[in-house]
């Protein structure tokens, strides 16, 4: 199984580069680099190899990119061993500054060491770089047969608020409340990004996923923001789908969807469901978009410490 996962990952990175002229799972990467590579200098990108299998797959990426002559220069940053007081975590200030300067980054899987008094690494990155949208394109890879062969959709998930605000408290013994927060600003931001993405990548439909029949004010606000943005893009069809209907349609006929935009929790579940449709987390590319045009692509799987070091 370890070799299978490794083979899958190599295949995903390989297919991303070598199949780029045809349809490919890394179309996002493809376009990012073609627009930037038109400049004569090299693109500088920050690379966080990460933990566990991270360094090995980061090496694979570097090898493939160099043999494909991609004009990119990697700036590697490793997660430190001590807590940097400026960021309150294991990530150093230099790493974060480097991402802010280069605007493009690639992150391997990072394991959060269990301890006290510091934030999870992914959370630090998300908060410091203000990564508000998580984009996950899901394409059926030709050559890897799953039960679903016609998957071609993008899930865009709001990454900062919603159910994952982490604001919980115990009211009395045995009763716990958790807050789900939706703000106009964050919803507008992610809706803008979704429509902008759809327009620049030639997608013709955006579907907003919600549960506004039950959570009327919160998801209602999210929908209102999506509708406002939809009016500015009249050439893109906009529809709203209730989330249980969406789940059912996804497992019956994934070709019905194009671009999906949703709040945090639904996005988490739906994007993992779509990853399952195409074959698993080992094959899914993902990218976090931040304020100030920062794009940090990442591996969504974990660091798999049990198979680290077992592939050449």
């Amino acid at each position, binding site marked *: 199984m370890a070799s299978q996962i490794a083979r899958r990952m190599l295949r995903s990175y390989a297919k991303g580069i070598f199949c780029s002229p045809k349809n490919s799972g890394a179309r996002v990467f493809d376009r990012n680099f073609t627009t930037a590579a038109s400049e004569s200098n090299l693109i500088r990108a920050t690379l966080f190899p990460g933990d566990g299998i991270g360094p090995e797959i980061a090496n694979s990426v570097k090898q493939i990119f160099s043999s494909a002559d991609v004009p990119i220069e990697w700036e590697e940053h490793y997660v430190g061993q001590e807590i940097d007081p400026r960021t309150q975590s294991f990530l150093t200030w230099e790493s974060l500054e480097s991402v802010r300067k280069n605007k493009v980054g690639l992150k391997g899987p990072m394991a959060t060491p269990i301890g006290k008094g510091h934030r999870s690494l992914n959370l630090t990155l998300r908060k410091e770089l203000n990564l508000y949208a998580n984009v996950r394109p899901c394409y059926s890879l030709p050559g890897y047969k799953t039960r679903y062969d016609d998957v071609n959709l993008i899930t865009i998930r709001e990454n900062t608020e919603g159910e994952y605000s982490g604001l919980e408290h115990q009211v009395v013994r045995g009763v*716990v409340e958790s807050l789900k927060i939706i*703000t106009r600003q964050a919803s507008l931001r992610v809706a803008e990004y979704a429509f902008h993405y759809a327009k620049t990548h030639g997608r013709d439909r955006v579907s907003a996923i919600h549960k506004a029949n039950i959570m009327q004010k919160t998801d209602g606000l999210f929908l209102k923001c999506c509708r406002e943005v939809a009016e500015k893009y009249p050439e893109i069809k906009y529809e709203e789908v209730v989330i249980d209907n969406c*789940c*059912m349609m996804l497992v019956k006929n994934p070709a019905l969807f194009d671009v999906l935009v949703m709040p945090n929790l639904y996005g988490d579940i739906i994007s*993992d469901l779509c990853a*399952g449709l195409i074959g698993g987390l080992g094959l899914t590319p993902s990218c976090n978009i931040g304020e100030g045009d920062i794009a940090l692509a990442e591996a969504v799987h974990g660091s798999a410490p049990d198979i680290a070091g077992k592939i050449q």
Partner: protein
Amino acid sequence: MARRTLPILNQLCARSPSHLHPLLGLISTRSVTYMPRPGDGSPRPVTLIPGDGIGPLVTGAVEQVMEAMHAPVYFERYDVHGDMNKVPQEVMDSIRKNKVCLKGGLITPVGGGVSSLNVQLRKELDLYASLVNCFNLPGLPTRHENVDIVVIRENTEGEYSGLEHEVVPGVVESLKVITKFCSERVAQYAFEYSYLNNRKKVTAVHKANIMKLADGLFLESCREVASKYPSIKYNEIIVDNCCMQLVSKPEQFDVMVTPNLYGNLVANTAAGIAGGTGVMPGGNVGADHAVFEQGASAGNVGNEKLLEQKKANPVALLLSSAMMLRHLQFPSFADRLETAVKRVISEGKYMTKDLGGDSTTQEVVDAVIANLD
């Protein structure tokens, strides 16, 4: 207690051969007799709520089949529509008197000021567990084989508390409430269900890595109840991983117990992989009442085209009414109904549009009645 054990034993004996060999269940084998108490056969009143959209069509189908079977139930019809403010008092009184209700879907307007009537009904009658049984029907080809999942979902609290408010313009908060009391009783129901129905594994679905206190409390309650049932395996899975596993390897799941929102998603996903919402039975049960309806309705009640052409799928509600008959302790009527429906599906001649065929609701109902023995 003897009165209750015999039908359950009968159910266990009757169901286990059909669980192993789906085709064997189609041949009616006579099982150990259910010995009723004198007077058990007197007709039982059941509240019937046709509902909106395709509701009246499919509940009409159930009424026809019940009449053809001469089942000892008679229906008290009440008209409730999704845009009413609350469920009328006479309907609630009727349900409280009869204790059992069969219901079509009720539309919940999106984003409107009306709170969902389905949710209201569940909260008022304290129907704390919602059950959806998703299984592969022989004769209905799907992408996944060997699916037999029961999703038991907490029905009263969680994200559906309806407690929302606007903090400042542009910032809205919604409260998700998890209590030990509700989590414990739904976990208790899930394990008891598994025990009585000979199920081997219960999986708790959660997101406790992010919502540590809320889902952590849910998990704690499940673990406590699990320790009282050592013969049933128990494990936990995070909801996003669960959805991924459902679409790739659904045969690993047996009974799943979940809080409110995740249960909605998981039930609809499981229904989708096993054949669609048109065929999955389900119901809501509480300490005193039970309401049976289509298992996973995916939040819609059909569109006008389905209604005009009368091509709605009655199979889900027919199987739910079989569940209702078992709940009322008429197991042989339930078996006959289930066998007839399964035979119709496996023959494949009369299937509605969502299953790939072209029949109308009436044709399917006639086929089921013809197959009743």
